């Protein structure tokens, strides 16, 4: 058997060219070359998704190419799924869904394929499913477990709502994905019953023989929400974005087009949303990680570091009366100086 990395390279070249036939050939070559279905999924296909992230950050791919490669990889999972040994479902009945408002469907799709490779009776509901629809689906079909995928930490409040609603319907919730932090720290904050760092660990967890926990239905440690900082920030996003935009406009690079300005404003929305999520789970690291990543992204696009620093500063001015928010913002600014 050849190293899956070789096929990942072959697949990557085809994906970048937008060539579905060549991409499918890479996947089938890997299968025929003796790479296990699980490794084709995680070490070939998922590996190229990770690469999408680094290439985009480095400004070597556009957002639309991200969508396009992800759409092709979605079909590559169909190709793999059609060419692997069938496995009759003999384990838990699981519903896989994304957090309401989540755009990253691929991680949930991969988890679904993994679960079905291992004999789980699994149903995938995709992204863009409003929580009320997820809940009525659960009432109708009565799964034993809900597996909830989240990539965007900004959707943690929505994840909390979905988890609570599933638990109220009597079903325990397993969560995973980048949204919950590399060590799953935010998963338990928003009340998840179980968390796994990746699909392989999720399988070990669910096949270990330990019975599923009964749905807990209470999150631990969200007492800080009573200071209303999260609510205030979430409610005044448009106002905050407007004020910060006006304060830093003078720093825009020469030749910044109307479209660039609009994109910048959209990035400001993300910034405020990440601050809101950090306030929700009371974790400075959540915000700092996003700011550091943004700094990297901006530097790859040759936008001066001053702009981001002043932006965070202007947001601090707006939130002077919010001690937790101010603490997170000051921390992020110190981190930026250190970069």
């Amino acid at each position, binding site marked *: 058997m050849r190293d899956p990395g070789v096929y990942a390279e072959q697949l990557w070249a085809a994906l970048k*060219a*937008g*060539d*579905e*036939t*060549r991409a*499918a*050939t890479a996947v*089938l070559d890997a299968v025929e070359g003796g790479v296990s279905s699980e490794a084709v999924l995680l070490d070939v296909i998922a590996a190229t998704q990770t690469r999408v992230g680094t290439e985009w950050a480095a400004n070597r791919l*556009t*957002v*639309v*190419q991200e*969508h*396009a490669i*992800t*759409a*092709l990889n*979605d079909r590559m999972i*169909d*190709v793999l799924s*059609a*060419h692997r040994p069938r496995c009759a479902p003999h384990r838990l009945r699981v519903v896989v869904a994304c957090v309401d408002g989540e*755009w990253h469907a691929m991680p949930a799709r991969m988890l679904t394929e993994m679960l079905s490779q291992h004999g789980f009776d699994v149903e995938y509901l995709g992204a*863009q499913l*409003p929580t*009320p*629809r997820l809940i009525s689906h659960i009432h109708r079909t009565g799964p034993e477990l809900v597996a909830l995928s989240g990539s965007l930490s900004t959707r943690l409040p929505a994840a909390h709502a979905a988890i609570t609603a599933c638990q109220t319907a009597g079903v325990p919730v397993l969560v995973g994905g980048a949204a919950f932090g590399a060590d799953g720290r935010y998963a338990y904050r928003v009340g998840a019953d179980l968390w796994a760092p990746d699909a392989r660990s999720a399988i070990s967890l669910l096949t270990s023989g330990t019975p599923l926990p009964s749905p807990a239905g209470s999150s631990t440690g969200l007492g800080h929400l009573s200071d209303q900082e999260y609510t205030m920030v979430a409610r005044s*996003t*448009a106002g905050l*974005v*407007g004020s910060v*935009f006006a304060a830093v406009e003078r720093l825009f690079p020469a030749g910044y087009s109307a*479209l660039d300005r*609009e994109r910048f*404003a*959209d990035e*400001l*929305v993300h910034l405020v949303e990440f601050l809101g999520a950090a306030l929700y789970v009371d974790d400075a690291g959540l915000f700092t990680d996003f700011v550091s990543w943004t700094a990297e992204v901006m530097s790859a696009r040759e936008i001066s570091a001053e702009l981001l620093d002043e932006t965070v500063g202007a947001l601090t001015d707006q939130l002077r009366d919010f001690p937790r928010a101010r603490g997170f913002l000051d921390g992020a600014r110190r981190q930026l100086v250190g970069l």
Partner: protein
Amino acid sequence: MEFAARYQPAGDGEQVGGDFYDVHPLPSGTGGGSLVVLGDVCGKGMAAAVLTGKVRTTLQALLPLIDDHLRVLTMLNNALINSHHDRFVTLVLASAVPVAEGVRLSVTCAGHPPPLIVRRDGTVTMAETGGTLIGMLPEIRATTAEVLLAPGDTCLLYTDGATESHGGPLGREMFGEERLQRTLSACAGMPAEAVVEHVHMVVSRWVGAREHDDTALVAVTAPLHPRNLRTEETRDA
């Protein structure tokens, strides 16, 4: 040829809206193509849902005549007028047939915003078609545009939920036709699925947590890399 579609219901998705789309195979003898129908029935709730159902089934029944879009629209108009609905519908019909050079499209709008065409180089144009809405007046008129999609070109059919949504980073601007064209221009050369996903995402972010109208999007794409046999076998497996 590739198709991809998205439907975003209004509110939390519990209420039935008036936007819809269908893709039907064209009757045999027309070269293995498909008919895309996308429409918007005015209003919401039960009465709108009933009319939507009627429009969809009537068009399906009229498929054998679809070579002549104006004739089909006229018959649909008569059917609606005779059933005394006090609502109307705006529609786009697009017959798409794969040919050696790409995809041949015949597009007809009836009171609906014309579909946008994005070429592989990023140029965006509006299909040159227009006509009266259906279900209001005893006589209708409509013109059909003939468009050739070369490999890498996409035609996007959409409802005004996309362009008339209000929001944006500062919260009060309308998304508008021009922004849709710019968004689409960035999708040049992309597969249909990526085009609808991207447009849907940009529009949704524009609306944010605010109340949005229902929206339907359908993309027809002439792929840059046609699938070969090995992939086709895979898909059928």
